[in-house]
């Protein structure tokens, strides 16, 4: 019973890691760069949602859509203005750039008077409710996280499988040059991928906010999502979610059963083990480039 309870909490937390990791993987698949600004997109999504609900009086679900759209646009804009000019430079340069981008976004938020440096609670319609399922306690926040993650994954699956844009993204991620020759606008697609990754992060932010409050440093969770992406395999979208849930469950169980302090390092121990036995992650493909 205790184990089931712990696994449930772990799955809920893991879904958040998985959503942020999904953004990492989306961007990596399309452009072979890692974006360390994902955590900050999540934070911005949460602040945007807060602004819409508290500032403009939007209902929660409308604010969710609104903040997702807004942050997606921001992602597209940032890709166009900041990242695209740097493509072609060494990989290290680009990921330092995204790291710096994260700092800048965090700094900008703290410059917003009064709002930026305070911690806020997000008013959600399901706040404080606790559901009782066959003896297991699940807070409504956790339930919504799991449900929305599942829904989002289904949506993304349908998009990648059946829509033109989704198929084009897959093609571009497999071989950019070939896709370009087939007439696929690879450059604009990259922008869209950034937008999509930012949108997913924004959703994660809104889901996380009722559980952890909204503040400028909430993006640090990106540090845990990176191991999740590695565990799942950096080239696999479902892997990102599975990786996230794995990390979440391991953390939850180790926090209860192992001595104090193990919870904080559990994610990294899992990553180390994974890198030793299966460097491509659970679902990653072994890629080789022939010159």
């Amino acid at each position: 019973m205790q184990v089931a309870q712990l696994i449930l909490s772990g799955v809920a937390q893991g879904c958040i890691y998985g959503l942020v990791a999904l953004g990492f993987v989306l961007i990596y698949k399309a452009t072979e760069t890692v974006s360390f600004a994902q955590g900050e997109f999540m934070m911005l999504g949460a602040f945007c949602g807060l602004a819409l609900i508290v500032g403009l009086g939007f209902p929660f679900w409308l604010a969710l859509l609104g903040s997702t759209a807004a942050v997606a646009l921001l992602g597209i804009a940032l890709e166009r203005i900041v990242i695209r000019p740097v493509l072609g430079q060494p990989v290290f340069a680009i990921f330092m750039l995204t790291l710096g981008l994260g700092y800048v976004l965090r700094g900008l938020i703290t410059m917003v008077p009064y709002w930026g440096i305070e911690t806020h609670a997000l008013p959600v319609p399901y706040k404080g409710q606790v559901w009782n399922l066959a003896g297991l306690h699940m807070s409504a926040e956790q339930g919504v996280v799991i449900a929305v993650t599942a829904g989002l994954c289904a949506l993304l699956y349908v998009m990648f499988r059946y829509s033109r844009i989704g198929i084009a993204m897959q093609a571009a991620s497999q071989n950019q040059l070939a896709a370009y020759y087939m007439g696929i606008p690879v450059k604009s697609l990259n922008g869209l991928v950034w937008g999509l990754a930012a949108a997913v992060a924004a959703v994660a932010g809104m889901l996380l906010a009722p559980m952890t409050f909204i503040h400028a440093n909430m993006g640090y969770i990106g540090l845990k999502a990176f191991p999740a992406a590695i565990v799942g395999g950096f080239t696999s979208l479902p892997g990102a979610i599975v990786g996230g849930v794995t990390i979440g469950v391991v953390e939850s169980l180790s926090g209860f059963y192992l001595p104090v302090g193990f919870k904080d390092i559990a994610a990294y121990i899992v990553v180390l083990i994974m890198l030793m036995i299966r460097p491509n992650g659970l679902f990653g493909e072994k890629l080789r480039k022939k010159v």
Partner: protein
Amino acid sequence: MRTHLFNNCLSSMRWSLIALLAVGASMAQAQVQGITDTEIVIGAVLDLSGPLAIAGGPQRDGMIFATEEINNAGGIHGRKIRLILEDSGYDTKKGILITQKLLSQDKVFALVNTFGSAIVQATQPVAIEHGIPFLFPSAASNITYLPFHPLKFGLFATSNDHMRVVVDYAYGKLGKRRFGILYQDDETGQSALRAAEDQLKAHGLTLVERTSYKRGDTNFSAQVSRLKAANADIVVVGHSIREGASVAIETKAHGWPVDMMVPWGTVNAVITLGGPAVEGLYGATQFAVQPQTTAFKAFNERFKARFGHGGIQDYGTYGYTAMMLFAEGAKNAGRNLTPQSLSQGLEKIKNFKTTIEGPLITYGPGNHASPADAYIMQVRAGRWVQIAGPIAYENMAK
């Protein structure tokens, strides 16, 4: 040859003259750093944007309010205070850089109310080495006044003293016997853990469960599960403020309405963030913003008018009191204000209190220790209410 020698001689004379003039000029200034004819420069290193900005914000307001009050009353012996506030973000590295900037660029006379044990530990030696008074840090560690140094003065109660009050109240008045603790895994949190263990030992008890979290952690589910499995009847949250609200919410989500005590977090933000989950939460503080004497009510109205939101709260009380203590010490020192005369001036302070309800503060030669009184608070009907105190640490069972 002779011309060459003569020119050399003239040249060295010229340089000696210039050197003499420079020395003379600097002696004529005879400046103590941070003091001019018209102002005293004070520096403060607070957390204004990091994980403890929830305390830093009120602290800043308290310090500004006190500074304005002092300056509007004419300053100290004709000098106004210029307060320079800086943000450490609760990051020790940043704290050190900022302290160095305050010391060497802004040339402050004293550092007041630095926030955070980790930052105090790192920056206090730097200040003392420079001969700069390091006064009244908001840090629950006795490094604020020990080992003794003329330029160190404490104000914030140590973890041990504060925890003694809390444990004794929970043991004696609330009848708690199974204490669990959730502490932040850094210096401050570790000192809270040690304090809890020490004070429980005095009652012949041990902690039934101890759990930790890293600063910035968002998920307390596993920790709460452990505390629940250990059947704790009270959970002490050590040195966390925002996390107190999160843990309260988490315990309710687990269907476990256990009593909780936050010995260092009686700020209003905890109530705003925690909502109905924090109803009944216990807390402790050295300065209560109650009872509502007429003088305090007027004070609070002015405070509300100045800052546009609620009255003064925990941590603001420290900021305010720290500046008022400084002013008192500087007044005692007289017009010839130096770090040494300030130290002696502060040592003359006996039974000092501001409009805010709090311990009577007394210093003396060889005694720069933090005052030792606390109030027990509880969240009732969405407000922090004082339910016991002042309780003097001396009265505790040892």
